[in-house]
Structure formats: C-alpha cells, structure tokens
C-alpha cells in the first residue's frame, strides 16, 4: 500500500520508520492508506466532507496519534478537515505532517484545516512537519489552518516545522484561551529558491491568567520571502510573548509584523523581532576551529533551527 517514496516522506514528516504504535491515520494521495484506533482514541471519517474526527477520551494518558499525509502523485489538490476532541485531563501527543513528492508538472496542494477542542486541564503536544521534494515544474503548496479552543487549565505545546521544499505556504493559526490555559508555539522555518511562506498567528487570551509564548526561528535563503505576523489579544489578566528571530541571506525578503492588542490594564504583552544576517564573528569563530566558511554557515543555521 505504501511505496518507497511515500515511506521516505513519512520518515521526514512524522519520523515514522514503520507503522506507528497507538492510533494513526495515514492518508496517501487523497485516500486512506491505513488506520488504527485504540480503546481511548477513536478516529471517524467525516461524512459531509473530506477529513476525520479524532476523539480522545477524558483521562487518556501517554498515548499518541499520528495523522501523516503524503501526496506523491502530481496534480492532487485537496482540502481536508480534521477535528480533534481532547477530553478533560488527557495527556497526549499528536503528530501531523504533510509531505509532497511532486515530479510532475502540475501543482500539488494540501490544505489541512485542523481544529482542536482541548478539554479542561488536558495537555497536548502537537507536532506538525512539512516537507516537499521532487524537481518537476509543478508547485508544492501547503496552506494549513489551525484553530485551537482551549478550556480552563489546558496546556498545548505546538511545534511547527517546515524545513525544505515547500514552494508556497500560508499558515494561519488561531487560538482562544480560557482561564489558566497556556499555549506554547515553536515555529521553525527555512525557505530557499523562490519560495514564499506566510505565518499568521492570532491568539486571544480571554481567561484570567491565560498565557501564550510564540517563538519563531527562520532562515530565508536565495530569493525566498517570509512574512511573520503575530497578534496577541489580551482581554483580561494574562501574559503573552511573541518572538520572531530570522536569519536573512542572499536576496531574501523577510517581514515581521507585530501586533499587540490589550483590552485590560493587567494584560502583559511583549513582542520581540530581530532580522539579520549571520554574524561575521560567528563564522570567524567556527572557521578558527577548522571549518570552511560553508561548513560554518551550515552549523550556524542547523543550530539556529534546532
């Protein structure tokens, strides 16, 4: 069912070398290529549109769900709706990821709309990796939308990674947090060639003592373009921090747009943004350890994106 190319892409996006333990749903070229549910985690195909519902029972601990997507045929365009219902007090890891292999001349596009309903005091670690390969003329396009609704005391840690090959991406992330909820986002992005990547975050801190920390580290090479917009809305006693740190190289273009919106005197919101080239003294230090300039550059970038 899964061929070699698909297998390799699965490794890139989901660190999967074999069929995963626990619940999973593998989608390949628009069709289900494998599914497993557990006593606590159910996966149900949507009837009204393309996509799945993932239902995690309250109190589920230390379980994981993998829902990778692979497109290896040229010319597939799809929009998929995945809804996650995470029960109270659950503690789970969700790994989503999309890999495109496009050798053809038609564009391949996957737009995943993910909605998370996180119950009281639940804890979720979410990893989403994007990867594309193939040297056809067809573009590899990913436009993920993530919506997160966090109930009181819940904790969500999201890792969003896009390191290679995706030509065009618009990532939209929205979150609404109730009291004592926490959302942490780590985004890592590298663009090259003529790629374009836009990331837009809007986090509404609605509950008392809710907090968020959005950290983006990116490298823009060649003639690529990146736009990072982070808006944090503080409607009560809350704390929010956004940080965008970008290395710009060659003829790239990087835009960072901060937006802080405080509606309460006790909303503490901070935004930091820094864009700059690789520091010359970093290169000199690594070259003085015997690395060539190119090796030094690779080390600095891979450390930065780690």
């Amino acid at each position: 069912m899964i061929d070699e190319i698909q297998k390799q892409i699965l490794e890139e996006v989901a660190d999967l070398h074999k069929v995963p333990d626990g619940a999973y749903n593998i989608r390949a070229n628009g069709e289900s290529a494998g599914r497993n549910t557990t006593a606590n985690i159910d996966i149900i195909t949507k009837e009204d549109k393309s996509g799945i519902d993932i239902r995690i029972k309250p109190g589920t601990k230390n379980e994981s769900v993998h829902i990778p997507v692979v497109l290896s045929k040229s010319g597939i365009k799809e929009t998929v709706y995945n809804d996650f219902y995470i029960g109270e007090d659950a503690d789970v890891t969700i790994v989503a990821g999309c890999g495109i292999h496009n050798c053809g001349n038609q564009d391949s596009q996957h737009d995943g709309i993910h909605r998370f309903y996180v119950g009281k005091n639940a804890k979720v670690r979410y990893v989403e990796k994007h990867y594309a390969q193939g040297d056809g003329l067809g573009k590899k396009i990913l436009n993920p939308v993530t919506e997160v609704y966090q109930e009181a005391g819940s904790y969500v840690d999201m890792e969003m990674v896009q390191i290679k090959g995706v030509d065009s991406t618009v990532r939209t992330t929205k979150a609404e947090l109730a009291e004592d909820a926490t959302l942490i986002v780590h985004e890592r992005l590298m663009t090259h060639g003529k790629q374009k990547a836009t990331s837009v975050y809007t986090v509404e801190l609605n509950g008392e003592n809710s907090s968020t920390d959005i950290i983006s580290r990116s490298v823009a090479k060649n003639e690529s373009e990146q736009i990072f917009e982070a808006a944090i809305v503080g409607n009560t006693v809350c704390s929010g921090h956004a940080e965008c740190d970008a290395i710009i190289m060659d003829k790239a273009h990087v835009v960072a747009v901060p937006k802080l919106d405080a509606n309460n005197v006790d909303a503490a919101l901070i935004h930091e943004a820094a864009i700059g080239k690789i520091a010359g003294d970093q290169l000199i230090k690594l070259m003085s350890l015997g690395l060539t300039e190119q090796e030094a550059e690779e080390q600095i970038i891979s450390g930065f994106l780690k």
Partner: protein
Amino acid sequence: MLEIKDITYQVEENNQKINIIDHLNLNIEDGKFVVITGPNGGGKSTLAKLIMGVNEITTGQMIFDGEDITKKSITERANLGISYAFQQPVHFKGIKVIDLLRLAAGEKLSVSAACEYLSKVGLCAKDYVNREVNASLSGGELKRIEIATVLARGTKFAVFDEPEAGIDLWSFQNLIRVFENIRESINGTILIISHQERILSIADEIVVIEDGHVKKQGTKEEILPEILGTSAAKAACDKLM
C-alpha cells in the same frame, strides 16, 4: 616556530592611512609560553587577529613552521595548527557547549571527554554541556568555554586575546589557575595577550608592543621589572580601585 617578518597592517580613517601595525618583527619559538603586553591601542589584539588570519596583513610575511601563511585563510591556518581564543566570545543561538567542543575537537567527542575540558577551565561540567552558547551565560562562563574550545583543539600554537577582559575579580583568580595549569601541561606554544601581572609572571618570555611594533622582548626576568607599575602590567585589583 612562528616568524613574523616586517609586517604592516594599514587602515584608512578620515582619508588618512594609519599603520595599526607598523613594520613589526617577531619570532615565537616552539613550546614557549609568551605574553604580549603593552599600552592600549598599541596593536596587540590586531596582531593576534593577523596571526589567525581574521585580518589580512598589508605588507610583510608570516611563516609558520617553515610554511608561508601570509595569504592563507582562517580555515587553512586552523588546520595547520593555530588556535585563537576571542577577547569577546561569540554567542550562538541553538549551538550547545558540547556542540562547540565537538566542532573544536574535530571528532564526535564523548560527553565525558567534553566534561574533562570544561573541568580544566573550572566549570562544573554537567551543568554546562547542554547549555546554549548564548547570552544566558555570564561573561566569565563564556570566556572559560572559549578557552575550553582552544584546549579541545589541542593545536601546537594557541593565541589567547586578553583572557582576563570582561570577567569579574573572583572569576579572574580562577582563570589564573587555569593558565597555571595550562602552563604545567603545555605541549605546544602559547601566546597570551594580557596586561595582568599574574599572567606576566608565569611567562617564559614577555613581548612589549607599542605604537604597532615590538618595543621590548626578553625573558620574564629581564622585562617584568622594567614594566611593573606601568599600564603594561596591572595588578588584578587595579580594576576595582
């Protein structure tokens, strides 16, 4: 042996050409512990950078173990066996102390081997190996890690540019001990740029650089009495007074 032959390093400032290093000649023999001192602005740090190849000399020649390195890059000099500890250590986002030590050693250094280098510079290794080399570390900690990278390289010629700069007095006392240890276990040439009397007092040889050239060179016994009390040799407490 490092032979520095009649080198000049020229910069342009306000349309005027200035020789930061002005026809400087110096030989550093193998296995020696040499301290370069002299007034601020005399060209000491510039000389260190010229030796590592960070800046390119304007005229003159530099020979290392019989090989002309005048036109060689930083990487080539590093691979020939020259190391350089920065006066102001560089920060790296995401690169950990162990990564840097591994790059320095040029091999997949084990954690215990990395810890050994950190212990040598007086850092409790387990607290540091997995820290990022960034501003969360203090100046004194970064300085020791910088020195540890040079130790991990284990090359035959190591240059330390003002190891005492930017560290507090307490760290300084420990740093002196580090260099006393290096002094005892030396198996290569060490060149330190320093104003500190304690460092000068463990040298085999002292070189005084002023106005871009060598003003004096000789054994510690010859030079130290002449320069004590000048800005070339400061007692460690001067900074606090």
